[in-house]
């Protein structure tokens, strides 16, 4: 009798552990990460753009360009005394070695000067770790350029890219499917404009104020609860 009870408890615990694992594990499957970014810098007549994206967006990039096949086979090499190791190129190698990925980047990040397009050179070597580097050679020294970014919006129109340019005007811009083009000025007057701090500072103050209010309310609730007979 005692044994069966123990067995029942063990069975119950196993079932609960399984339920817990099933319930909790997929939470890791949709990760919180940095959004896509483009960092712009100008040097003489060249504009450099560094595009970075979180790993799941890189997979989307591989999918829309065809660099990473949608259906895949994994072949593992089983050595006599070694760990099984997958054979063939990794996803990172497929992406960085793909002509289609380079063409896609050059097509979806474009720089123009006075209506003339600046041709891009794409370097994918550090795509996964540091980002893809695009160097645009413009005809004239760069003071103002038009930059168009439509990265991955063909996969889903909700994709957006945050662009930064240190010392330029604007200093940052959000590229969306409805707002894919922005003009950036890299001249001396640009650095004076800076960022709009009002909303973030107001938000930070509001968070601090509500946190303080919550603490006060909780204390009062606790005191009321402690004071009332249970």
């Amino acid at each position: 009798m005692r044994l069966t009870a123990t067995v029942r408890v063990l069975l119950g615990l196993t079932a609960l552990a399984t339920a817990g694992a099933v319930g909790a594990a997929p939470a890791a499957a949709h990760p919180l990460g940095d959004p896509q970014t483009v960092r712009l810098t100008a040097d003489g007549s060249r504009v450099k753009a560094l595009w970075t994206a979180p790993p799941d967006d890189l997979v989307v990039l591989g999918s829309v360009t065809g660099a990473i096949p949608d259906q895949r086979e994994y072949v593992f090499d089983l050595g006599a005394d070694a760990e099984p190791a997958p054979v063939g190129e990794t996803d990172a190698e497929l992406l960085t070695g793909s002509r289609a990925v380079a063409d896609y980047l050059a097509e979806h990040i474009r720089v123009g000067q006075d209506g003339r397009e600046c041709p891009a050179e794409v370097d994918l070597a550090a795509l996964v770790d540091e980002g893809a580097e695009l160097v645009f050679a413009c005809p004239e020294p760069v003071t103002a350029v038009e930059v168009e970014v439509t990265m991955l919006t063909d996969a889903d129109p909700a994709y957006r890219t945050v662009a930064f340019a240190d010392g330029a005007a604007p200093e940052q811009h959000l590229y969306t499917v409805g707002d894919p083009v922005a003009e950036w000025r890299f001249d001396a007057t640009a650095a004076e404009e800076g960022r709009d701090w009002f909303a973030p500072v107001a938000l930070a103050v509001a968070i601090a104020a509500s946190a303080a209010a919550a603490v006060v309310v909780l204390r009062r609730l606790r005191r009321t609860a402690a004071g009332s007979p249970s």
Partner: protein
Amino acid sequence: MTGIDARLLGAFDDALWPIAVGIAVLVGAAHAVRPGHGKTLVAAYLVAERGRRLQAVALAVVIAALHTVSVLVLGLLWWWTAEGQAASIDSLADWGRLLVAVLVLGLGAVVCRRQWRAFRHRRAHGHAPHHHHHGPPEGAGPWSWSGLVAVASVGALVPSPAAFLLLVSGLLTGRAPLAVAMVVGFGLGLAATVLAVGLMVIAGRDWLGRRAAGHRALARLGAWAPLFGAAAIVCGGCVLSVTAVAALVGA
């Protein structure tokens, strides 16, 4: 970014603000229906602590508040630091997951201990349910805000990527008020789903309790249920710890 989460950003870009906030509430509710987000642990906690409806409501409020605050704090942190090359919330999110795991393990340990004692106490005084003192039922957890926060942290401390991106979009396009309103709406939707789960769990447990009065096996199951719930919290904490540590080591 896929499916319903993408609709959140689409609504921010295109919809009128009342519609956008409404969509955010719906997306939040639908988002929480998917696996994860601590629904299992909420259920386990309410069973283990013999939680009442008010506790489920408080839990939902804490989840909505915690999700909103963590989106706002992470969004602002990212906005402040993103200009520098090294900025990354990936590692922050990993550490956040570890913090959640530790909170849940700690909560599991506390609840387990309390329920084990209550169980032993009931055993020592016979099987029949009896009330030899007034107040909440035996083994019922005292009203514990830290316990509620620990459970709420599972679904809310590491926020939804779409809500985070929404706030960043708001900060960058000068439409921060709409973004904040939508983030609050998203948190409320999330909390509504969790509240629905919590109320269902409580209703199911009470139904079982009523049936158990004339049923020996059910009564025994009812006596064991809080212990199972407590064990489930510990198991959940273990799973969360393993995934969090794996993410930190793998990074």
